[in-house]
C-alpha cells in the first residue's frame, strides 16, 4: 500500500521507475554471479598462483594470510628438475589429433543414435559412457594388455589412440544430442527442394551440429590434456605428458607449491582455448537457432 502511495506521489513515469529497478536488479545479479565466479574459479587460481610463488626460505604458514615473501624458486625448480618442456610438447601434439580422430570415429555412431530408431539405443548410450564412469586406472590396466599385444604401447600412435578412446564417449554423447536437435521439417524441406545427401550434410547437418561439435571438442581436448592413467601405463617412459608430472607432485607425495606450478602451466592454454571456442559456440548457436545458416 505504501509503495502504491509512493508511486502515486512520485512524478517520475512508472515505466522509468520499473526500468530503474530492472537495472538495479541486473547490477545485483551481475555482482552475485561475479562473486560466485570469483569464489568458484578465481579463488583456486589465485591460491595456485600464490602457492607457486612461495619462497622456501619463508614458508607460507598459519597464521599468515598471504605468503610473507615471494620467489620464482618453485617455477625454476619445475623447469630445471622435471621434463615439463618435453611433456608440454607431447601433450599438445597428441590432443589435437585425438580430438580430430574422436570426431571422425564418433560421427557415424552419433548420427545413428541421434537420427535413427534402433533397438537397445538407451543401453548403448550407457555402455558408451563406461570408459569415463569406470576408475581410470582400471580401464588403463585392462587396455594396456590389449595395447601391448598389438605392439601399441610405447608408441606415439598408441598414445593418440588411447586419448582418442577417452575422448569418444564425450564426442558421441554431445554429437548425438546435436543430431537429435535438428528439426525433421528442415530436412524434409531440403529434400522437397531436391537436396542431395551431400547437400544435406554440407548445408544442414554439419552447420547445425557445429555447436555440439565445438562442445565435444572442448571435452575431448580437455580429457586428452588431463589423461593420466592410460598415458602413464602405456606411454611412460618413452613419453611423458603434463599430468605425469602433475601427479608426481599431487598424489602420494603431495607438494603443494610444485603442484601449483604444474597446474597453472596445464591450465593456462586450456582457459585460452575455452574462451576462443566459447565465442564460436555462442555465434554459431545463435545462427543455428535463428535458421541463418
Amino acid at each position: 500500500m505504501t509503495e502504491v502511495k509512493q508511486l502515486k506521489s512520485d512524478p517520475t513515469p512508472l515505466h522509468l521507475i520499473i526500468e530503474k529497478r530492472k537495472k538495479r536488479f541486473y547490477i545485483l545479479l551481475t555482482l552475485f554471479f561475479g562473486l560466485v565466479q570469483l569464489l568458484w574459479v578465481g579463488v583456486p587460481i589465485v591460491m595456485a598462483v600464490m602457492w607457486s610463488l612461495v619462497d622456501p626460505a619463508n614458508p607460507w604458514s598459519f597464521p599468515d594470510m598471504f605468503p610473507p615473501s615471494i620467489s620464482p624458486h618453485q617455477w625454476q625448480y619445475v623447469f630445471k628438475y622435471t621434463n615439463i618442456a618435453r611433456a608440454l610438447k607431447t601433450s599438445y601434439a597428441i590432443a589435437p589429433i585425438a580430438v580430430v580422430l574422436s570426431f571422425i570415429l564418433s560421427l557415424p555412431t552419433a548420427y545413428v543414435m541421434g537420427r535413427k530408431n534402433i533397438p537397445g539405443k538407451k543401453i548403448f548410450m550407457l555402455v558408451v559412457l563406461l570408459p569415463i564412469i569406470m576408475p581410470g586406472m582400471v580401464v588403463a590396466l585392462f587396455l594396456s594388455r590389449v595395447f601391448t599385444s598389438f605392439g601399441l604401447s610405447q608408441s606415439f600412435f598408441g598414445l593418440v589412440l588411447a586419448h582418442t578412446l577417452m575422448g569418444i564417449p564425450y564426442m558421441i554423447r554431445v554429437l548425438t544430442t546435436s543430431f537429435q536437435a535438428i528439426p525433421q521439417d528442415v530436412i524434409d524441406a531440403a529434400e522437397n527442394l531436391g537436396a542431395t545427401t551431400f547437400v544435406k550434410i554440407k548445408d544442414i547437418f554439419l552447420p547445425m551440429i557445429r555447436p555440439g561439435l565445438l562442445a565435444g571438442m572442448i571435452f575431448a581436448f580437455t580429457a586428452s590434456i588431463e589423461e593420466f592413467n592410460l598415458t602413464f601405463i602405456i606411454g611412460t617412459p618413452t613419453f611423458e605428458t603434463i599430468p605425469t608430472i602433475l601427479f608426481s607432485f599431487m598424489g602420494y607425495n603431495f607438494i603443494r607449491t610444485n603442484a601449483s606450478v604444474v597446474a597453472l602451466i596445464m591450465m593456462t592454454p586450456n582457459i585460452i582455448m575455452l574462451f576462443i571456442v566459447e565465442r564460436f559456440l555462442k555465434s554459431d548457436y545463435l545462427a543455428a537457432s535463428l535458421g541463418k545458416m
Partner: protein
Amino acid sequence: MRKVFTVILLAVIALSVVSAAGKVEAPVPTIDLQTSSWSAIVEEAKNEGELTFLAWYFPDYFREAAADFEKEYGIKVNVIIGEQTANFNKLISEKDRAVGTVDVSIVGGQWVKTTMDLDLFYGPIKNILPDADKLAPSLWEVQEGVLVRGFLAPFHRNQTGILYDPQRVTNPPQTFKELERWIDANPRMFGFNDPSRGGSGQAFVHTVIDNVAGGLDRYVGDTEVIPEKVANWDLVWKWFNDRKDKLTFTVSNNDSIIKINDGQMSMTYAWDDNVQEMMNHGNIFTRAKMYIPEMGAAGGGDTLGVLKNAKNKAAGLVFIHHLGSKAQQEKKFNMVGAYPARTDVPLSGTLLTEADRTNNAIAWFPAPYKDFMISEFVKHVLMTK
C-alpha cells in the same frame, strides 16, 4: 561414409601390425650376473648403455645423481618421476612381459609386500653389489615387517615420530598416558592419516596396539596372523572410537604435515624424510620440530630393486651401487635431508636426534599383522559411526 570408415579401420590395423613388428624381444644376457666379477658387470652395463629409473620423489636429487652417473660410467639414465601407486600399477601390469620398460625402481615400505609376493624383482643382489655390507644390514633382510632376502638394496632409512608446532605445543607428550591427556585437553589438534593411505598413520596405530594390546614382542617371527594374539585388538579399536571426536583423520602422510602448516592441527605422526622434503619446498614452517616419543614409533626405509624383466639389468645394478656409494649418500643427505642407508656417513642437522633413534625407535611387527591392522582399522574405526 562407409568407405571413409573402412579406410580408417584399415589404416589403424596396418599401423598396429607395423608397430607390432617392431616389438622388443627379450635380450639375451651375455654374462651371468650372479657369478661374474664386478668389473665384468660394469663392462656389461656400459655395453647396455642406458637404463630407466622409476621413482616418485626427489626429482632434483635423482636428476643430479643420474648426471653424475652418466659422467662416471657413460651410461644414460632416463629418470621418470611418477606417482607412487601409479608406478607400482605400471610395474605390476608389465610383470608378464618378457621385457619391461623399467629397469630400476624405488620401493616404498607400503609396496614391499605386494612386490615381493608378486616376485617382481631380480635377485638376490646383496651378494653382487660391492660395499653392500655398508648399507643398513637390517634393511637388506626385512623392510617394514616383510622379508626381502637381499633382493632390495637399502636406499635411505626413514623414521616416524611426532611432528609439532612449538609455538602451540610447549610440552609435547612422551608417554602414551601423556598423549591421551593431551588429546583430551586439545580436541582435534592431534591427527594421523588413514593407515591404508600412508605409513605414518600405520606407525601411530602400531604404537597404539603396542600400548593398548600388550606389547609387540609376542608377534615376532609369526608368518601369519595368529587369531589368539589379535583377540584383544578390540580394545585398540575401542580406544580410537572413544576418542573419534577428538582426533583428526587425514588422507595421506603429506596431508598431515600440511594440516600442521595450516594450523588445523598442532601435532601429528609423520615421516622424517617427508617433513624434510616439505620444508625444502616451503610447504611447512621451518620452526617445526620432530621427536620420537618414549612410547615408540616405527621406522623403515626405502629400497631399490632391479626388475626381473629389466632390459638393462647390469646397468641397473651399477646404478644401484652408484646411489649407495658414500659420495651419493652424502650428496642426497645434503640436498634433500634424507637419512642415509649407509652406516658410514657422518651426519649433522637431522630432524630427529641420534638419541631418539637409539632409544625410542621400534621395529614393525611382521607384515601379516600390518595388513590385518590396516583392514581391521578401516572396518572397526573408519567405517563405524
